[in-house]
């Protein structure tokens, strides 16, 4: 009893990792579910094979060797039985491996031939953040954001993946398999969330110093919430506010080097090197999943990006304390 308890506790602890917002074993999207079925099927088949091998091995160990006569005298019946066992073993191996190959082939083919997409999103991997651009259509305005992708539930989304500097890999374990972002070519991934929720994604190809801090969120909303989000995101930032601190922040942002790399629609900031900040205050995290978006974390990030995420491509811009407070307040107001 106590032994069973001791074994069960770690097993349960390990199993608790199987769910959550970033788990291939907690699939919430069609492609991820197909992949999950594939891997569970392969594990089940392998478990059966392992048990069969161990059973045969155990039997061979327990069985007594029959007394043998002269070693060169062949026993016809025994020879035939041995040959049948070996041939059956090889045949079973071939059948199993062929089955795995076929299952894997069918699954990956069905991933590629997904239903026509309702929405196309272009994702560009950069060191170390994700540039997201929604292609326009009649019901969907063109919009740019970063590190947070919103999708409607139950709709197929076509994600066009492009690399900008080095190879990255787009992986939302709960929704789809991995797909690389390679500079100079466009890879396509179809994603579909069956349940609303927030799913975490992560770069899955080592891409440099801050590879571990290159995360993003996929937020699956119902159709109405998604439309509202898209409408807000497509609009420009509020031109002025009632708070003089925020107005000062805008002024500082536009006069300092910030505007050389970042764009805020509705202002003169049109930089394209860094993430689009038009609605940065409305995103859940800043700096590709590094810190939750709060006034404090925004100020900390602007004050010293190289200490929080060493090696990233945002330089420290010298700001006086009151300028820093104003810029952080402005960023946080950009909902």
């Amino acid at each position: 009893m106590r032994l069973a308890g001791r074994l069960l506790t770690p097993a349960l602890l390990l199993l608790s990792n199987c769910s959550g917002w970033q788990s291939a074993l907690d699939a919430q999207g069609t492609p991820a579910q197909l992949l999950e079925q594939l891997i569970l099927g392969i594990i089940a088949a392998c478990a059966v094979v392992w048990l069969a091998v161990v059973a045969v091995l155990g039997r061979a160990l327990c069985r007594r060797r029959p007394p043998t006569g002269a070693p060169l005298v062949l026993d016809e019946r025994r020879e035939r039985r041995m040959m049948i066992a070996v041939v059956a073993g090889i045949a079973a191996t071939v059948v199993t491996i062929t089955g795995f190959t076929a299952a894997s082939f069918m699954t990956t083919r069905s991933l590629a031939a997904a239903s026509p997409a309702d929405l196309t999103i272009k994702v560009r991997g950069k060191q170390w953040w994700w540039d997201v651009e929604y292609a326009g259509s009649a019901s969907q305005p063109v919009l740019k954001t970063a590190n947070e992708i919103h999708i409607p539930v139950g709709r197929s989304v076509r994600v066009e993946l492009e690399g900008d500097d080095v190879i990255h890999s787009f992986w939302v374990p709960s929704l789809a398999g991995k797909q690389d972002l390679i500079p100079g070519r466009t890879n396509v991934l179809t994603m579909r969330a069956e349940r609303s929720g927030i799913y975490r994604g992560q770069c899955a190809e080592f891409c440099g110093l801050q590879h571990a801090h290159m995360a993003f969120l996929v937020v699956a909303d119902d159709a109405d919430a998604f439309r509202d989000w898209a409408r807000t995101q497509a609009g420009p930032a509020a031109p002025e506010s009632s708070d003089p601190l925020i107005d000062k922040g805008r002024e500082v942002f536009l006069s300092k080097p910030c505007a050389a790399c970042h764009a805020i629609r509705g202002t003169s900031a049109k930089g394209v090197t860094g993430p689009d900040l038009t609605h940065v205050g409305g995103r859940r995290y800043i700096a590709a999943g590094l810190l939750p978006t709060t006034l404090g974390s925004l100020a900390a990030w602007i004050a010293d990006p190289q200490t929080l995420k060493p090696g990233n491509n945002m330089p420290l811009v010298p700001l006086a304390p009151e300028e820093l407070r104003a810029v952080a307040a402005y960023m946080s107001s950009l909902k």
Partner: protein
Amino acid sequence: MKASGILLTLMVILSGCQREERELRLDPPVAAALDQVALMPNGISGAPPQVYFALGQPYEANAYALSEGKRLYSWFGCAECHGKGEGGVGPAFLDGWWLYGPEAVSIFASIRDGRPHGMPAYRDKLTTEQTWQLAGYVRTIGAYSARTAAPGRDDAKQTRPAENRSPAAILFDEGPTPLHPDQGPEP
């Protein structure tokens, strides 16, 4: 005898533990002191502050500082005017012709305060530390002597000798034609 052999090996292995210091952020008083360069009245040449030597002249010999300088060079658009050192709208660095002298303080002052004929002042855009990093890097582009410390390698195609190979010396050794015929055959 055997013990001394083992000791020697251990010491050699231990020396591998030493790693170059990476100063992510200077103490504010140190940074403030680094800004106090004593320039000559004409704004050319002069003496760096004492603290520069106390720190061990990190901006010329520290690979991390040089790499940061290289990043600042691209972030702040230096290449718009100076290219990858070959010049353009602004003067070249690669030829080793320093209009205001080759000292680090002169380059620091050029970046911080700007110079006539188009060089803007970066006083409000860069911290003192960043200005020194950038000055140290710019100096390696037109260096006459090879350095042991090097910034990160270019990801793009190489168009000139690497910074730690004393590009100026290589370019000047190539032929007798001076790159600035109007200014004389030698720098």
